């Protein structure tokens, strides 16, 4: 699964060499550029073209014939609109839960002492490196009709609840998959926080709650927001979790694209849905990123 770990280090360039020496950096980046041009840029371009290609159920893709029909179809058909809406609200809910749980968790962890602090941080983050299929399978065992969670619910008198193959299972498992990203984002901004300011607020008579709300929270907000962006983006495009825990009925955007490609064999329509997802993701990420950066640059100087 796609993971965005810590924020990328910003490379600091050396003083500019003479223009004649541009050949050296270009040569050094050429192999990687060649790979990315043939296996990233060209395929994306081809897929964009494909999404405009005419598709015929009997003969397949008609190269050279173009139409906007697939886009019109995706934006007008209730089936696709319902799936986009479901994907949106599930991703939104997962993001909110991750903020509500991940941010305080990062804060609690940051106030622990070593070795607990280091060990528990790793426990929270390490599932990130375990295949998402394994984690989905674990949740299907926990949330199944005979699973541990239903056993507990039965023990306290709430009869068995159908969770597997419903939105509940998808949301729970997505929260589990996304939680490390939120903790990483908040943790990173907590590391920049000056403990002295917090102590100053306390020593000047602010209550712990007021300190948290007025001093800590404003400073970790950029971390919370960038974590939310990552969580929302990854949730909206998640495939294995809805595929394994949503069952055949409960589709999200990624599972629909998979169906179009490998069952319906309508590649142009699948490409259209995938590109709409990509465009929506990029718009949300880039615009929110700009808002966040602008606002916090002003607010924090």
């Amino acid at each position, binding site marked *: 699964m796609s993971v965005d770990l810590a924020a990328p280090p910003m490379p600091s360039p050396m003083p500019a060499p003479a223009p004649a020496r541009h050949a050296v950096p270009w040569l050094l980046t050429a192999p990687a550029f060649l790979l990315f041009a043939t296996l990233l840029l060209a395929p994306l371009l081809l897929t964009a073209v494909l999404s405009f290609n005419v598709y015929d159920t009997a003969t397949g893709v008609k190269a050279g014939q173009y139409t906007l029909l697939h886009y019109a179809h995706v934006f007008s058909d209730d089936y696709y609109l319902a799936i986009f809406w479901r994907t949106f609200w599930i991703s939104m809910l997962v993001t909110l839960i991750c903020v509500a749980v991940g941010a305080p968790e990062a804060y609690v962890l940051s106030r622990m002492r070593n070795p607990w602090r280091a060990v528990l941080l790793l426990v929270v983050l390490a599932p990130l490196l375990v*295949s998402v299929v394994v984690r989905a399978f674990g949740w299907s065992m926990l949330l199944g009709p005979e699973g541990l969670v239903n056993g507990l619910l039965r023990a306290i008198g709430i009869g068995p609840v159908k969770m597997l193959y419903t939105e509940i299972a998808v949301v729970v498992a997505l929260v589990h998959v996304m939680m490390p990203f939120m903790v990483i984002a908040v943790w990173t901004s907590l590391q920049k926080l000056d403990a002295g300011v917090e102590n100053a607020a306390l020593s000047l008579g602010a209550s712990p709650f007021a300190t948290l709300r007025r001093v800590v929270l404003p400073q970790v907000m950029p971390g919370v927001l960038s974590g939310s962006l990552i969580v929302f983006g990854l949730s909206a495009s998640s*495939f294995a979790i809805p595929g394994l825990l949503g069952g055949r009925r409960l589709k999200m955007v990624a599972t629909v694209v998979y169906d179009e*490609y490998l069952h319906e064999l309508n590649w142009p329509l699948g490409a259209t849905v995938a590109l709409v997802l990509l465009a929506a993701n990029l718009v949300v990420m880039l615009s929110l990123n700009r808002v966040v950066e602008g606002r916090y640059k002003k607010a924090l100087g």
Partner: protein
Amino acid sequence: MRNNGPIALAFNALVIGFMLAPLLVVCVVAFTPHNTLTIPTTEFSLRWFRAVFAHSDFMSSFWNSLRLALCSATLATVLAVPAAIAITRHRFPGRDFLNALFLSPLIIPHLVLGVAMLRMFALVGGTGSFGWLVLAHTVIVTPYTLRLVLAALVGFDRSAEQAALSLGAGQATVFRRITLPMILPGVTGGWMLGFINSFDEVTMSIFVTAPSTVTLPVRMYMYATESIDPLMAAVSALMIAVTAAAMLLLDRVYGLDRVLVGRT
């Protein structure tokens, strides 16, 4: 700094339990002696692990995944080291674009990459070829490798290099004897992170693998959509064990906290 109160600690325990629960349950159920997914209480059995090793599909997928991860992590490292040197040490037209391009697979959903690669493979006739699969995986693991190599090169003290150059060493010798050893933790850490990410990848791979090149996570995904039995738990437990071993190694070489939260 103040200590955490009891409520904070209880909350922390719940979150830790939540994060570990699915992994623990998989590992425990894998030892069941029964034919159903039950938690073994009285006796433990290794029968499902034996079943995995006797299962030719899972085994061939495992070897596929292993070869694929070895090849793509290595290729990604070979591409990322010179690219990172160019990006950190030179200011040239297109530098920001290339940096963004090489990191972009982190932002583009793997689903979209899978769809795009499938289109490309179909056009060049590369569907089902191991070589094209390696290239596809290299694209998605390069950003991880590149980031750690970039981190190693930023804040790099170049005085040792300059001393070697002024003493008459050639560019190649300086790179081999000074630069590479100094950025080695970043390079090996990046390689391992690339390895783990390639080994675990499912969303893109499911579009571009053919029956002969199916990777282990894809095989598991397909198996789990058909049937759920303790065999799946045993494979999952083995996956967790492999990942844990890789993490331990990564921690030794580079420091897991540095990889995960970017602390240097």
